């Protein structure tokens, strides 16, 4: 029995476990597969269970949720939002709410949460089940729908015609802005009124004609699917508006049943009216035109003829419209017309043809037809149009004119020949003028170039107004810009040298008084840079007034600065030449005087020598005699040297010792040197070598240099020394003459060997000494070098080749 109870217990337990487990399995399958997020939260606000959807939705593993507090799993922000609901649920109250949260991936989500508390056997809440539905797709759809509705609303409101949505009773369910606008324009009593729920008939009852209202009522009653009619309204401004009303059964899903649209067709109506007016005007033009006008289609059937066509061809419009040419006209005429029409249709180009028609009253007529194709906008032809003018009379007149023309042509031909002859004569005359013109231009050009080359300036003086025209060359030659020169006489007077003004005025006055044929004068003008420029002024009076007084004078100013400078230089040269002439005369005089002195001195010397032979002369007197004899000798030598020096050069080269030559020259200068207190310090090399030179020329060079050294000392100079050194090498002999005089200034240092350069003035120096010396030394294949320092002295070095090397 015990075993039976055991088996029963086992069976019951197993059955209970089986059922329980099955339920649990079902629940798990459900919770696993439903899209809602299912979880169980205990009293400690920790997750005890979450389903697969929950894990997927949050994108985390089960281990990170189960037994974890909500605050940690959901985050502080979400937890704070749902905290009140959690607390209420844990108190045993069911919760149902919607909330917007941020998911783990950062996207926003809308969720609906339902909390179901779970109570134990004692009624105490153990926790709650949370079922969360993701409403995000629905919310997005709602937003999408809302946006689409707004867009549709915008479109409907931007449509310029009215759209009403009505139910079957005519009550308004929707209207767009255009409805409101037009109704408010028509009836001010609707200001601020919402039309929803009102009947469309009530709104339009005062605005529409009764027949239009009845029509709309009828259609609404019969629920006609599609209908439309036109009606017109007068706006308060008095302007008439045409509208077209169209209805359609609204689609399913709309509140209303009908969609009524009103379209303002006022503009279209106005255009139609204009077109009708234009058409009637065109018809009036065509009918009143004095030309035959017709239109045919491509098969040659008449589409239109004008009134003149009917009159000209004596035919009714009704009898011709829609018929072909051959059905209307005789074959001969029809063939002609068809041929011309065919040409236009094939070429699609306008043409002008002469056609002959038959008038029952007047007989045969000639018309000029302009035919052209009629084309659609796409360029395809649909017919031709012809405009014909009766030219019968014109043809007759043309023949008459032909005859007149022939006669006139003969006359014109003769006149033309005459004109050709005159034209040839005129051409020759013009050619003559052109040659003269070219010659004149050439002459002017030549004169212009001549002036440019000669650098002459031209002036043109109006004696009446004192205005003076100065040529650009005149201004430029004085350094002025064209706008810097005033064209009047005062300007000229201001730049004339004050010393020349009187001379110029006198010369001018003489010419104006006709005492001279030309006005010629030399004066100085001040250039822009302030320098004086010499000018040769030449002018002549060229116009006289009625009283015979000069009124215009033209002349030139020629720059003669160079000539003037040359003249001044010539004058200076002339002075120097005169001075040299004097020196030359002095030389000759010196030669003559020395001869005259030499004889008496020689006699004195002989007498003195004889006196020395006397016995009764005291030693003191003898000594005096000897001094006198020596002095006589010295005078004789001096005279001899002077004579030699002033004698014209022989040009004969001979061997000379320079030391001796220097002594000879020093002898000539000893007197002046001693008188001035100049000490000569000689330093001659003893083993000298001869030089092969023209002796007197070298003497002249030495004399010149020593003379310059002598003159270089100021009278009050403390130290007056002249050092003369000679040195000889195998190839050359060198003489160095050094003085401690005033030296040569830098201004003229570079030019001291050029002619006529002197610091002593023309009274003392000719400026030729050094140039001549330079020339002489160069002729002897030697050279002169000079060094000088102002206030310290100069040093001349003469180098000459020794005799062997010549």
């Amino acid at each position: 029995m015990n075993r039976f109870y055991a088996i029963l217990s086992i069976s019951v337990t197993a059955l209970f476990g089986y059922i329980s487990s099955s339920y649990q399995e079902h629940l798990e399958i459900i919770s696993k597969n439903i899209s809602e997020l299912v979880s169980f939260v205990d009293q400690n606000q920790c997750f005890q269970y979450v389903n697969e959807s929950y894990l997927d939705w949050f994108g985390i593993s089960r281990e990170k949720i189960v037994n974890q507090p909500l605050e940690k799993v959901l985050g502080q922000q979400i937890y704070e939002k749902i905290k009140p609901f959690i607390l209420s649920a844990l108190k045993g109250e069911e919760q149902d709410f919607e909330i917007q949260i941020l998911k783990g991936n950062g996207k926003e989500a809308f969720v609906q949460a339902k909390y179901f508390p779970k109570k134990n056997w004692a009624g105490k809440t153990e926790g709650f089940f949370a079922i969360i539905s993701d409403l995000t797709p629905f919310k997005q759809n709602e937003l999408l729908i809302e946006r689409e509705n707004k867009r549709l609303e915008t479109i409907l409101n931007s449509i310029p015609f009215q759209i009403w949505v009505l139910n079957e009773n005519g009550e308004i369910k929707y209207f767009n802005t255009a409805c409101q606008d037009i109704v408010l324009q028509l009836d001010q009593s609707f200001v601020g009124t919402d039309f929803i729920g009102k009947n469309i008939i009530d709104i339009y009852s005062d605005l529409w004609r009764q027949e239009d209202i009845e029509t709309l009522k009828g259609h609404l009653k019969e629920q006609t699917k599609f209908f439309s009619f036109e009606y017109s309204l007068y706006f308060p401004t008095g302007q008439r508006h045409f509208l077209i009303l169209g209805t359609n059964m609204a689609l399913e899903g709309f509140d209303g049943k009908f969609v009524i649209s009103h379209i303002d067709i006022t503009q279209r109506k106005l255009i139609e009216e204009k077109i009708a007016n234009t058409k009637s005007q065109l018809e009036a033009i065509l009918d009143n035109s004095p030309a035959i006008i017709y239109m045919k289609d491509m098969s040659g059937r008449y589409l239109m003829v004008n009134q003149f066509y009917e009159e000209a061809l004596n035919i009714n419009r009704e009898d011709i419209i829609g018929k072909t040419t051959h059905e209307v006209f005789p074959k001969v005429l029809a063939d002609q017309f068809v041929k011309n029409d065919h040409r236009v249709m094939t070429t699609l180009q306008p043409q002008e043809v002469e056609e002959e028609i038959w008038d029952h009253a007047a007989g045969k007529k000639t018309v000029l037809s302009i035919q052209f194709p009629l084309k659609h906008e796409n360029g395809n032809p649909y017919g031709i149009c012809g405009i014909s003018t009766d030219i019968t009379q014109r043809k007759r007149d043309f023949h008459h004119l032909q005859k007149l023309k022939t006669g006139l042509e003969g006359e014109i031909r003769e006149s033309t020949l005459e004109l050709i002859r005159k034209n040839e004569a005129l051409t020759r005359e013009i050619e003559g003028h052109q040659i003269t013109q070219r010659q004149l231009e050439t002459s002017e050009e030549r004169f212009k170039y001549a002036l440019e080359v000669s650098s002459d300036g031209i002036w043109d003086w109006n004696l009446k107004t004192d205005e003076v025209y100065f040529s650009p060359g005149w201004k430029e030659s004085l350094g002025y810009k064209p706008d810097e020169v005033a064209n009047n006489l005062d300007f000229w007077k201001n730049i004339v040298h004050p010393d020349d003004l009187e001379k110029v005025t006198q010369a001018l006055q003489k010419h104006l008084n006709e005492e001279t044929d030309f006005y010629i004068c030399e004066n100085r003008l001040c250039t822009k840079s302030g320098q004086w420029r010499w000018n040769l002024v030449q002018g002549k009076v060229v116009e006289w007034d009625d009283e015979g007084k000069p009124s215009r004078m033209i002349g030139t100013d020629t720059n003669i600065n160079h000539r003037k400078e040359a003249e001044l230089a010539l004058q200076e040269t002339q002075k120097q030449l005169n001075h040299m002439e004097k020196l030359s005369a002095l030389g000759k005089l010196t030669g003559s005087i020395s001869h005259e002195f030499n004889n008496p001195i020689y006699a004195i010397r002989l007498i003195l020598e004889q006196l020395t032979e006397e016995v009764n002369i005291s030693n003191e007197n003898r000594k005096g005699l000897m001094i006198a004899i020596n002095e006589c000798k010295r005078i004789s030598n001096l005279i001899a040297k002077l004579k030699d020096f002033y004698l014209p050069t022989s040009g004969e080269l001979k061997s000379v010792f320079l030391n001796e030559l220097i002594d000879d020259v020093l002898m000539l200068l000893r007197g002046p040197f001693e008188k001035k207190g100049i000490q000569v310090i000689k330093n001659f090399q003893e083993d000298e070598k001869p030089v092969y030179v023209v002796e007197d020329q070298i003497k002249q060079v030495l004399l010149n240099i020593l003379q310059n050294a002598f003159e270089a000392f100021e009278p009050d100079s403390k130290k007056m020394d002249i050092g003369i050194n000679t040195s000889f090498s195998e190839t050359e002999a060198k003489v160095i003459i050094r003085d401690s005089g005033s030296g040569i200034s830098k201004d003229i240092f570079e030019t001291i060997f050029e002619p006529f350069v002197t610091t002593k003035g023309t009274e003392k120096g000719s400026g030729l000494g050094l140039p001549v010396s330079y020339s002489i030394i160069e002729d002897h294949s030697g050279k002169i070098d000079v060094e000088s320092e102002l206030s310290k002295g100069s040093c001349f070095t003469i180098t000459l080749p020794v005799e062997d090397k010549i």
Partner: protein
Amino acid sequence: MSKTVLAIIYSVLTIIVFIIDLNTELGIAGGILYVSVIALCLLAKDKHFFVAFGLAGIILTIAGYFFSPGGVKNTRCY
């Protein structure tokens, strides 16, 4: 814990209960211990465990009736 491990544990427990039953004299309902094994099957969360170990418990309880000391022999004696 996997179901295989649980199945092995439950099997071992069933064998232990069967051995206890075999060593217990009749009159003492040793088979009642199979209820505890079945109860433990709740942990496996699998309904097949209940069927398997329930049937095993019933069969082994009946088997225990024959193989327990003083079992069917004594009965047969009567």
